[in-house]
């Protein structure tokens, strides 16, 4: 009986493996590998979840399934570099929002554990070519650990490409927001700021001390130290095995954050920021700090900033040699618009190749997953799409999408289904009013 069951399971696994290991070739399209020259009328061969090979002329096994994409353009899937996709469904419905934990030190949170695999926001994102998302929580000063998620799978575990990609923290605001809606007094703001800064600095030191004490205890060189799940979560960041993602927006905030990161001896730093990051372009390049420019389609920060200051920030960072990814300002329901943030940066001086790279290969590099994603290359994940043209142009349509070698049925998108249904609605009869 038992043996029989094992055999069944084994057969099932084999079947599953052979199904997912299906090989196919995309032919006739222009391949845009990113990080290499375009290949007109190229061939892209996929084995199971991975890309096997791509080139201008490849010998194909006559038995291999071919997908004719003549006239189409193949691009690697876009990667959201900084998102709350999966953690939020409808902003105004609190029960559907899992982005923001209470408290100041939330370093132990793991974003993937709250990722809603069946979120209705995922398919529209994929229909727009966004096939992977770097997801992070937002609450407190120490926000938690981020995760890289593919947008197709059976559950979050299945969809987690990498857990603990980054150690996220939000640098406290240094200046009181100049908002007409703020009812906070200067004193209250100042108190809150001081408390947050203290929490930032003291917790980092405490975590470092904890780490050393635990090490000493493990080596028998010190007394036993009780395990602390929150401080434990700092260890990869302290040791430099995980990058620290520092959210800071205004100029004083960025300046203070960079200074603190230096003082804290953070070796792998990614600044998640807005247009003010461009004011630090030279320093960021010199100190090898990567930047996620989180949203290009945004208003200038100050009334006297030039009207295109946000549009042009990416070009300034790029020109200074800063490693750059472009985000969408965390707009999960419209994650599909990520390429248009990059496009606006391109309209205002960022070379179009760099704009495309800033939402594909550069993101993968900054997240440390460029051996897996970000370009069309042998052994990388077969996560790509076929478009009618340049995907930075809004008029271009994305026609077919694959995630890990599996084609996504874009017609299963509820938005598409509503369109189809109501586009074919018959003309209504006249309305018979029932009087009041």
């Amino acid at each position, binding site marked *: 009986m038992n043996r029989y069951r094992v055999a069944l399971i084994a057969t099932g696994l084999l079947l599953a493996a052979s199904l997912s290991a299906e090989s196919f070739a995309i032919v006739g399209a222009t391949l845009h590998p990113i990080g290499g020259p375009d290949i007109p009328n190229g061939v892209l061969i996929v084995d199971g979840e991975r890309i096997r090979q791509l080139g201008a002329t490849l010998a194909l096994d006559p038995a291999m399934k071919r997908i004719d994409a003549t006239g189409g353009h193949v691009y690697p899937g876009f990667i959201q570099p900084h998102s709350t996709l999966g953690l939020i469904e409808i902003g105004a419905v609190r029960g559907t929002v899992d982005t923001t934990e209470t408290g100041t030190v939330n370093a132990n949170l793991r974003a993937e554990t709250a990722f809603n695999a069946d979120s209705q926001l995922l398919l529209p994102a994929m229909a727009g070519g966004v096939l992977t998302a770097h997801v992070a929580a937002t609450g407190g000063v120490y926000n938690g650990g981020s995760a890289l998620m593919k947008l197709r799978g059976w559950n979050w575990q299945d969809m987690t490409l990498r857990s603990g990609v980054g150690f996220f923290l939000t640098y406290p605001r240094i200046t009181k927001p100049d908002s007409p809606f703020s009812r906070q007094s200067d004193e209250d703001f100042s108190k809150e700021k001081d408390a947050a800064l203290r929490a930032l600095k003291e917790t980092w030191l405490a975590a470092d001390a904890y780490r050393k004490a635990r090490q000493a205890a493990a080596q028998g060189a010190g007394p036993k130290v009780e395990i602390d799940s929150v401080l434990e979560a700092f260890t990869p960041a302290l040791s430099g095995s995980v990058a620290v993602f520092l959210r800071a927006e205004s100029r004083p905030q960025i300046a203070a954050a960079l200074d603190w990161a230096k003082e804290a001896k953070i070796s792998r730093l990614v600044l998640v920021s807005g247009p003010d990051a461009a004011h630090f372009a030279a320093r960021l390049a010199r100190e090898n700090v990567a930047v996620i420019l989180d949203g290009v389609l945004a208003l200038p920060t100050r009334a006297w900033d030039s*009207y295109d200051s946000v549009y042009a920030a990416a070009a300034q960072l790029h020109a200074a040699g800063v490693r750059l990814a472009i985000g969408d300002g965390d707009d999960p*329901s419209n994650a599909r618009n990520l390429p248009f943030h990059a496009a606006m940066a391109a309209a205002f001086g960022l070379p179009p190749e760099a704009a495309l790279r800033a939402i594909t290969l550069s993101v993968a590099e900054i997240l440390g997953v460029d051996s897996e994603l970000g370009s069309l290359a042998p052994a990388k994940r077969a996560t790509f799409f076929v478009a009618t043209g340049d995907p930075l142009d809004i008029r271009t349509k994305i026609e077919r999408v694959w995630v890990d070698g599996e084609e996504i049925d874009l017609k299963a998108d509820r938005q598409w289904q509503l369109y189809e249904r109501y586009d074919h609605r018959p003309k209504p009869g006249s309305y018979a009013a029932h009087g009041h």
Partner: protein
Amino acid sequence: VIRQGSGNHRFAAPLVALVCCGLAGQASGADPSAWADPVPAAPKVLLVRGATIWTSASAGILENSDLLVRDGKIAAIGPALEAPTGAVLIDARGKHVTPGIIDAHSHTAITGNVNESTNIVTAEVRIADVLDAEDINLYRELAGGLTAANVLHGSANAIGGQNAVIKLRWGVPADQLVFKEAPAGIKFALGENPKQSNFQGQQGQGQRPGPRRYPQTRMGIEQAIRERFLAAQDYRRAWEEQRKNPKSSRVPPKRDLQLEALVEILDGKRLVHAHSYRADEILMLLRLADEFGFRVATFQHVLEGYKVADEIAAHGSGASSFSDWWAYKYEVIDGIPYNGTILWRRGVVTTFNSDSDELARRLNLEAAKAVRYGGVPEAEALKFVTINSAKQLGIDSRVGSLEAGKDADFVVWSGHPLSTLSVCEQTWIDGRKYFDRAADLANRAALDEERRQLIEKVRQAKKKKDDDKSKAKPEDRDKEPHPPSSTVSTSGVEGAR
């Protein structure tokens, strides 16, 4: 003081004021006209040459054509027009020219809050009273090709305040922003906002506690609107009788500004712009309007408009939608980016609006989404932000397309207006150039220098004040009841380059 073009005078102005006050006469060089940019000159005759002209009219898209402007109006469009003597020439070869973009739903240039949110009906309040001609967003929007906007009251009320249609004449006083010939209008709102689902009366995190206001349901919204229109009918009848028998011994009716606005709706003299999302509430207002005998000019947002497109078309309403927003609250869960396409196919005059000072800077790219989602032809898609907006606002005899006789409101783009890689180079209103990217770029260094000098002046003034204070005797200092705080706002200094 440099004023033109850069749009940055709002930085300079407060600092000039600060310096003037702080130094009491020492800043005699400051130019008080720095409070306003001068209105750009209007060339008598202007000829734009060699452009691809998107007319948003029956002429369609004209390649390699010229646009002749005389006294602020379009005089002719066609290939190789002869340049009249003294005409200002613009070489637009390789460039594209479109009508000025018109935003059918905006809250730009409003001083303070856009909502008078106290009552369920606030038809008496007027946006035109609170326009801020110095809102920097006007300039930013000009820089995206926007020339006119429907500035609406917020959506906190079933019947909200009266809107103001403006032209973005950057530099003029507030009353001259108003598009005087535009018909009067008013904001209505249905669904979650007027029933306060996400605001007052809930005690959740991030929600302001407060009293609950009637109504709290879509049924209540219908009744609240109905009740006011019944009252307006009574009010109209009372005044009709009063006018018929002015000598009657009856006490004349008391004037009611709220009901006056509603009577104007009943009389077809005030356009209703109705914020709405769901098909049910859209149908509700259509039937209520039918019953009271007025037409809803536009449904705004109207994200489920695609479900009742035929009903909207039959009533004769326009639809002014977001291109692709959805899922930010429950009532927009069925928002789809194909909404505009379906409405357009079913014969509704359709626009894409911004509802946002940010989005208003790139409405040409919103129009491109009608091409992306459902394949609306490009020239038709551009109409979603030009002539269709003008039709919805009742200003299409003046603006919205490039045709002889219309106002010379147009945009020169570096390339195809629906391409993400194109940039707005010039924006003209009434034959005046209100935005010029080249001038903006050229002025930046001088502005930075001016800003630096002003900040330095303020710093010196503060230093002198501090020095004077430290020279004073300690007992004098003790007498000072409130030690003055810094004269410079932190945000001002830290932001300076």
